[in-house]
């Protein structure tokens, strides 16, 4: 076996100019193309082409009453920017994303630190914390609908125990947004925890021990030693969380459908309603393109930040 491998290596070294040279048989010139082409075609058909097609279609007006499709340039965008609904949706998106970031990052840090304390001893705790990753957005929405139900929900039941008359969470604008934020964070938190926990595990213990020797314990050490070392992971999980919430549709759609009174209609929800309720596809595509641009800006900042901290993508 080793003799054969040795023989092969020698053969390869004889012709170093040709990187493809090897003793392997059955490798024609067209083989790599035949191998990779099906994947390239499917990815192009399902991801790349639809996105470009969507951007292209957002420049048209649909056929009305037999009149053919008409090129209108940026008119759909001009109308979108004049639409009050767009600006209010954008504002709600901002509140939604910011709310998810604050709640998600805070809880993610808290839980990651907690898991790190017992690492190696309580593996089942990490398994439990991944639970939300296994269920669909619709099932998660149902769980929060039960939890925050105004008549029999556990939240209002416990509030009642301490003498507070709980609100009808999902039928009032402000509280509905709160519940949607919590449900969205609940579904996204497993990854946040894993990213942060991974970061904590890579921190060189000697830093922590040195801090300990200098008398820094508990909060001081977490705040001035661990947190700065954890910055790359905090940034990555933050940007991932904003990507996921900015383009997140499933939880909102299944939990509130954008209601009550549009109180939870984010841009993603606005796009969905414009396309599949009002059937104004071209206008919906203008909104989608706008979200994609916002998202691309986020991704760029992701790459930039990753580079600055020398984190591999």
């Amino acid at each position, binding site marked *: 076996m080793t003799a054969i491998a040795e023989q092969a290596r020698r053969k390869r070294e004889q012709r170093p100019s040709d990187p493809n040279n090897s003793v392997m048989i059955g490798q024609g010139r067209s083989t790599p193309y035949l191998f990779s082409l099906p994947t390239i075609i499917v990815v192009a058909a399902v991801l790349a082409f639809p996105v470009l097609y969507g951007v292209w279609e957002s420049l048209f007006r649909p056929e009305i009453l037999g009149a053919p499709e008409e090129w209108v340039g940026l008119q759909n965008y001009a109308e979108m920017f004049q639409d009050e609904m767009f600006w209010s949706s954008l504002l709600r998106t901002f509140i939604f994303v910011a709310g998810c970031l604050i709640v998600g990052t805070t809880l993610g840090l808290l839980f990651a630190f907690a898991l790190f304390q017992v690492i190696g001893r309580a593996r089942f705790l990490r398994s439990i914390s991944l639970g939300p990753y296994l269920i669909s957005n619709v099932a998660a929405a149902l769980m929060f609908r039960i939890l925050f139900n105004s008549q029999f929900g556990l939240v209002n039941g416990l509030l009642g125990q301490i003498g507070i008359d709980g609100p009808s969470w999902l039928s009032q604008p402000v509280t509905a947004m709160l519940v949607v934020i919590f449900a969205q964070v609940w579904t996204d938190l497993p*990854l946040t925890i894993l990213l942060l926990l991974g970061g904590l595990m890579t921190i060189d213990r000697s830093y922590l021990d040195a801090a300990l020797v200098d008398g820094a314990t508990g909060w001081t050490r977490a705040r001035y030693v661990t947190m700065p070392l954890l910055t790359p992971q905090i940034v990555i999980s933050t940007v991932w969380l904003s990507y996921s919430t900015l383009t997140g549709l499933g939880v909102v759609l299944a939990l509130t459908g954008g209601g009550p009174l549009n109180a939870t209609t984010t841009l993603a929800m606005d796009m969905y309603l414009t396309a599949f309720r009002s059937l104004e596809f071209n206008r919906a595509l203008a909104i989608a393109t706008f979200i994609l641009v916002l998202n691309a800006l986020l991704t760029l900042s992701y790459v930039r930040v990753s580079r600055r901290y020398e984190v591999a993508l």
Partner: protein
Amino acid sequence: MVGTKARDQAGPTVRGSSAAGESGRGRWVRRLVLSLPLIGLVLWTVLPFLVTISVSFKTKGETFANYNLIPENPTIQAYQQVLADPNFRAAFWNSVIVGFGTALLTILLAVPAAYAFARFRFRGRHLLLLLVLLPRLVPSLGTMVPLYRLAAETGQLDKLTTLIFVYTGSLLPLAVWLLVGFIQQIPRDIEEAASVDGATLWQRLRSVVLPLAAPATITIAALAFREAWNEFTLALVLTSSPGKRTLPFELFMLQTGQGIANFPAEAAFALLTVLPFLIMYNRIERYMVAGLVSGSAK
């Protein structure tokens, strides 16, 4: 290792003071404070599941009567109702077909492609790899309306094959990304030895590369199955008739149905949907974790 962690957690001061003979109460309080976040983590994750399990074992009447976690008269009525529902059965089998179909197709396409990118040096290699990997940044929100329009124009709406095709496409960038890295780590010598022994390319792929890349392949299969099993918004848009819906879509229809909400049935439906994962979870957890971390941009 465990010893150091335990020391860090309790802190040297605590150890010192207890050695000095102070009552154990201070340490006990400190332990409690330190474990509060853990208790919070468990409550945060488990409570939504618990209330749902609780409701699924209640009658419709009892659901609205109180918020107790333990039902007064536990009943499996809701489960019987869901299991007897032809819509649930149809959706279940559709999800099974789409789930396994997506996992299988993703592996069938990704393994040869990843092998080509990892092992061959061919013209346009970097550009083609970029063409596969870059679309990973596209969120499904951006393809939703265009895919609907394209499927409508080509008569592919309301078909399970369309769902399999779409889910496979959206998973392939991640799958190729994971597999290329994995296959590159397989020593070339092993393959060359097999080749000298007369193994053709297909034989090498099947009996050398695939077994060695098994962990990455299982990760991809698990991710693909989960995505197809749980994906909701694209299924909502690309399918419509009762016989073609997947489980999340059917659960959504149950929620938005007319009349008083039947919470026990919805809860039982949701839990039956999660059940396959809970059964397999112990075996696939580490693959899921690997995939989850590397798939963070999805």
